[in-house]
């Protein structure tokens, strides 16, 4: 149970750090990274919530998986947009 608690606290800590970064940083790459950290923090919280006395529950794990898929797609879109913004700045 101690390890569960440690996971929960570090997940919540990551979420807070990421939200702080996202709110204060103007750098595009920093914000993409912030979003990734936020998603990882949330995934950690979800995975801890899946662990119970009678084994693990598959549903939060499926949520996490969906979250990862969405994150990969959105990160790709964000990086493409950031590149286009930089190109438009150079012109």
């Amino acid at each position, binding site marked *: 149970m101690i390890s569960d608690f440690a996971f929960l606290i570090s997940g919540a800590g990551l*979420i807070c750090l990421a*939200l702080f970064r*996202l709110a204060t940083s103007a750098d*595009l790459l920093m*914000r993409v990274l912030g*979003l990734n950290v*936020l*998603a990882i923090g*949330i995934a950690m*919280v*979800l995975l801890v*919530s899946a662990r119970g006395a009678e084994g693990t529950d598959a*549903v*939060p794990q499926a*949520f996490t998986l*969906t*979250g990862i898929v*969405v*994150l990969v*797609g*959105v990160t790709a*879109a*964000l990086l493409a*947009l*950031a590149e*286009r*913004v930089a190109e*438009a*700045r150079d012109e």
Partner: protein
Amino acid sequence: MSDISLIVLLPLLAAVLTAALPRQAAAIGTLATGLNAFLAANLGRQILHSGTVTEAIGDWTAPLGITFDANGLASVMLAMAAIVGLAVSLQAAAGPARAGFWPLWMATLGALNGLFLSSDLFNIYVAFEILGLAAVGLTALAGTRASLRAAFDYLTAGLVGSLLVLLGIALSYSVTGRVDMEAVAMLTQSDTGRIALALIAAGLVVKAALFPLHFWMPGAHSSAAPAASALLSALVVKGALYLVLRLSLEGGAGTEFLRNTLAVLGAGGMLWGAWNALRAERLKLLVAHSTVAQIGLIALAIGVAGNPLETGLWQAAALLMLSHALAKAAMFLAVGRIAEALGHDRISGLNREELRPGPAEFAFAIAAISLVGLPPTAGFIGKWFLIEGLIDKGGIHWIALILLGTALSAAYLSRVVSRCLRGGPHVSATARRPPWRTGDVAALGLATGALLLGLAAALPISLLETPFA
């Protein structure tokens, strides 16, 4: 396959087709929009006739399976998306073809329809992701640096919003063990449940661009192309607002703290949006800030509706969503035409000698009348319901705030209308009129729709009155 799943599937299939066949995209897209309008009308008729229609996809019932739930509120929202979609498709099919518009718009429509019908929180999250990505694409379509930057900010804010929603949904699953709408009423019973509900609400507030988390929105809505702006402002933000209303109806209104916060934020948005619209120098920015104000008004209506939701007040919120969608889409299409005719969209430059006001200016004026809420428009009916309900309840301070917001909206909209429609000595005798374009027809059609809807408000109201499942 029933009508309900078809109305979600059809636009998504059309999105794939329009992406695969870019040359026929306009024809396929327009056809799909027309079919979608037909299906939405048919579904509405069915609901009026026999009440809420439910479908469990693949015969898997809740809590394990996903249910589609076509109730009166969902049907009004479907009709809203269908009507605005028809007008925007008309404008886009006639205008210069932008590669990518049709697949993105079709995906937006499919995601919206799925969102309106779905009774499963996780399915709603997926619909939000499709909606968010498609909407970001629509923003970036203009290709200018401002629009790309706005799209980046939009996607970042949207992702933070949906991650908060996901966290809330996961937390609600760990409390209740289910993710369908039945879970919402259980959530209000425990502290952890209320935290889950608050997380979902916070995510939705970001997505709906409710004050003070609207920072990403004016830039995105003002830098996109006119057809895209109309879709974003009229429909996409409504997705999140609809879900806020739906969650309150399903029992979420039991959390008094959230309800009060929503009303206060709504009032703040109404005043802040109006203040910024008064100071805006560009026409598109003025319209975008007016969306911030109108979203505030709708959120206020949902927030003050009480628990259990009082009929008049929550119906006012739904009617205001509908009327705002029609008026705001008309306004953005009209602004697109005005900017095209003038070559710029500075408000100070709307006084001109060489060009007489044309149909676009007229459409803008009618849409403005509906947004302010003068009779006989749809906006008037919505505000009437809202104020009448508040008088019964004794919420006199809310009424004062709504009236202040209304006065401010009249003030900022007349900045444009007075400049556009003024004749007199400063218009030279040889001034020409701008020629008619399809965009004018779409804008005027929507504005007339907002006007007529006020006269035919009995139809959406009777849809809203069909009992909830």
